[in-house]
């Protein structure tokens, strides 16, 4: 293998393997940490579950903005780059209180298919996020890598929303 090939291979392997490590680490933490079941409650919401639901919904909407702005970027509209960056940052920021509660209070669970899928996707999402951020820093990465990790991130986010917030809304109604 030539040096160029090695460089090309590491530009793919490094972001993906670091992302995979993060995903596995989150899953292991979620499994090993004894779930506390505690919840902080916010005024104006019926439970922290409702707070999480709305934050996840906000993140999912910002995820749609991400998809639309990414498509625009690839069609040659560099003006939307700041929108893409900041909506992405906002989306991840909105998920942080949610994942902190998931990991700390609930942990990785697999009692029901919905919960198993949600737990797996949750770990995968942050792994994909790390992989995407690392991909962005590498100019030598192949062109297909960024849309693949970005697409994985978006798919995971929507899957997470479907297995949590949508379940909450259909079970308890659209409540705060």
């Amino acid at each position, binding site marked *: 293998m030539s040096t160029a090939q090695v460089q090309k291979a590491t530009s793919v392997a490094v972001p993906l393997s670091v992302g995979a490590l993060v995903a596995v680490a989150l899953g292991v933490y979620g499994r090993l940490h004894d779930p506390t079941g505690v919840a902080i409650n916010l005024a104006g919401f019926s*439970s922290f579950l409702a707070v999480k639901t709305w934050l996840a919904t906000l993140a999912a909407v910002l995820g749609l903005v991400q998809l639309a702005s990414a498509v625009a970027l690839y069609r040659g509209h560099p003006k939307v780059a700041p929108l893409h960056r900041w909506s992405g940052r906002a989306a991840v920021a909105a998920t942080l209180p949610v994942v902190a509660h998931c990991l700390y209070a609930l942990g990785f669970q697999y009692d029901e298919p919905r919960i198993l899928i949600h737990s797996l996707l949750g770990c995968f999402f942050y792994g994909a996020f790390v992989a995407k951020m690392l991909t962005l820093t590498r100019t030598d990465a192949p062109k297909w890598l960024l849309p693949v990790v970005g697409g994985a991130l978006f798919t995971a986010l929507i899957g997470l929303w479907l297995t949590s917030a949508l379940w909450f809304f259909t079970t308890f109604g659209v409540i705060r």
Partner: protein
Amino acid sequence: MGQRSPLVTLAATAVGLLGFMVVNSTQTGTSSSSTATPTSTVTPTTSGSATPSTPPETPTTSTTAPPKPPTVAPPAVYAGRTNDHVASLAIATKGDRAAAYVCDGRRLEAWLTGTYRNGRLALSSKTGERLTATITNTAATGTFTLSGRTLRFAIAKAGPPAGLYRARNSTSTIGWIVLPDGKQVGVDNDGTPAPAPPLDPATRKATVNGAPVTAQAVVGDETF
């Protein structure tokens, strides 16, 4: 162009997550110390929640029962034990509202409120426990989820004195489930859950830490 900015975003995300985890861990002090403290020194009550008894008759035919459930639930109380006998629970329904109490008579308890719609109950507690059930004229079947565990139950409709009772005074909230066989399971929570003193189901009076309290029957439209 910002080669470093994704790394900054990544670092900020990690710091943010860490911050929220720390916030969560500060919340443990109040709630988990109360659930994690074994209350072994407490004298057992006459409710004898640990005593195995005949399980409430579980109507196995209930799953095939009414083809169209009513839109609002008739006032009813369902009481019984979870399938694994870990805890007892009582659910009261009234109109489109429902209230439930789950406890093990020692240190686990949860007060839940929620809704009844098309034969389905969906309840949640302020501390994150959830209860979902399908109800028929004779039984409630469903699951209760608390911090990672799922308890399944199939409990029968219960008439007085069986039911759900609640009393409050300045320091504690006490919940009692009176099972169809007359046995009581209750938790007295003044910050640290402990077995509840016996309740006289006829007068609904009990003595908590030397002071008399009167319990109210929970009917389903409470907000807790």
